[in-house]
């Protein structure tokens, strides 16, 4: 079992460089194609050695659980980046105070960051709706990021692990012109910096 865990960990190291987050619950059935791939590639091994991922036979259909202790820093970062990308704090129109209903999200982000075992820097990105394109809107986005940064610090996240930026209205998640979109765009995102 220990040997199997090491194998899984080595796969995850390789997959960490890929754009898509690797699944942590590895299903061997999905690796059937991976099992065949190295044989097919043998003839052109020299040409592709440096660019193609190394794929390893996992032999059976057993599902393997991987604990964080067995993950490399790269994998941990990948996991953290993926988790943070799903966290969004929303704001009211023209406001930068954290709404009561958004506080649990900030607390969740704080817990994620405090629990992580990797060295990290997280950028809090303040965003605005389309009602303003000039400096005031960028400042509003910055204040939204700053408010959440301060809340995270108050919740025990080290200040030197956090940085902020404002994208004003330049990074909308929703580009339609309706109230649902505007509400979605008044937000903070969290990005793990490389």
């Amino acid at each position, binding site marked *: 079992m220990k040997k199997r865990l090491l194998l899984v960990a080595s796969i995850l190291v390789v997959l960490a460089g890929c754009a898509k987050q690797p699944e942590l619950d590895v299903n061997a059935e999905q690796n059937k194609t991976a099992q065949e791939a190295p044989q097919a590639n043998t003839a052109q091994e020299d040409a592709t050695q440096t660019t193609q991922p190394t794929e390893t036979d996992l032999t059976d259909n057993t599902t393997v659980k991987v604990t964080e202790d067995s993950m490399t820093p790269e994998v941990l970062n990948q996991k953290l980046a993926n988790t943070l990308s799903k966290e969004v704090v929303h704001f*009211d*129109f*023209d406001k930068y105070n954290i709404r009561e209903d958004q506080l649990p999200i900030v607390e969740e982000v704080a817990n994620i960051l405090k629990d992580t075992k990797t060295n990290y820097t997280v*950028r809090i990105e303040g965003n605005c709706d389309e*009602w*303003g*394109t*000039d*400096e*005031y*809107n*960028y*400042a*509003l986005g*910055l*204040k939204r*990021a*700053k408010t959440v*940064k301060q809340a995270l610090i108050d919740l025990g996240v080290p200040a030197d692990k956090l*940085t*902020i*930026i*404002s*994208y*004003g209205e*330049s*990074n*909308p*998640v929703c*580009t339609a*012109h309706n*109230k649902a979109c*505007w*509400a979605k765009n008044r937000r903070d995102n969290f990005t793990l*910096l490389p």
Partner: protein
Amino acid sequence: MRIIILFFMVLFLEAQNLEIIKYVNNTKPKIVVEYKTLPLKLQNILKKDTSIISHYEIDIKNKISDISEAIDTKQYNGYNYLLRLDYHNNFLIALLYNLVSHKVVLYKKYKIPTFKVYPFMIHALSYDINNKLGFKPIPWIRKKIVYSIYMAPKEQSIFISDITLTYRKKIISGGLNIFPKWANKKQTEIYYTKLARQPILYKYNIHTGIKKKILTSPGMLIVSDVKDDKLLLTLAINDQPDIYEYNIKTKKLKRLTKYVGIDVNGQFYDNNKIVFISNRLGYPNVYQKNLDTNKVKQFLYHGKNHISVSVYKDKVVVSSRETNKAFDNNTFNLLLINKNTNFVKRLTFGGKNMMPVFSQDGGTILFIKSYKFNSKLGIIRLNENKIFYFKLNRIIQSFDF
């Protein structure tokens, strides 16, 4: 019938003085245009310029065989001037003749390196015509506009255009390039912010393409105003948006405002003051700071929610958010306020009108009107009481001229 040989008169052009036009019965001077060769594109820009300037009228009439052929003045009763034009091989020859005094008032050759920049050539001609007719100079019509356009999420490119947005050239692309500002009066260099890992302020030469990094700062970094070697910046060194002055020569950075809320959009005002937007009273409004005494006070007492400002002497133009709807369209209108008399004039009526900027002579205001996926560059001629719009099928993020 009086026939005048023009080429003879042109010889004496240098010695002639400008003539001041006096409106007769309050009518504008009328110019009849004759041309040998004048592409339709040039004619259209000439018509647009004439509309924007609003000082005279033109009537493009007849083709001629040669610019120096004799003039039949009698057929142009009711006109004050005759303008003869001939364009070929990136050259435009213009001759402006006073039909009343029978004098040539302008005879000039305009050269362009490539046809693409023809709008600037016609703007130069319009500038000269306006001068020769004795009106107040309009240098802004020859200026280039620099602006940032929203291309996609996290992607904004910087373009330059003429004032009618007919000429368009992309000069910077890739990533978020925002808040371009002309770095000098000759309009050869710009400052702009690139949002990378941190905001970076660059100076970029539009002719050579040489880019120089000026500053980086966490959070936010925007050039709000340029005066010789001094820049007014909105910076967030400690995550806090405040106004700073940066001397490009000495590289000294000086913090001018210190407030826990929002201070942005600093503008040089008088010799020793700045005006800026702050939310010190819980909503955005215009404030001023005396740099000698360090005193900050409210600058405008009319209305609130003024989110951007431009000042020319006693005249202040603000973009004011007049509605406060979280889930509906909001209205931003431009208000012109006389600082001394508190006279307020509404310049726009509805829509999203933002980022007003006075021309150097204070007689014209440029601004952006946005609607869903489009923007328009608006030109307000204050004395003439007219607004003109030039549309772009993109959202303009910010501009300078």
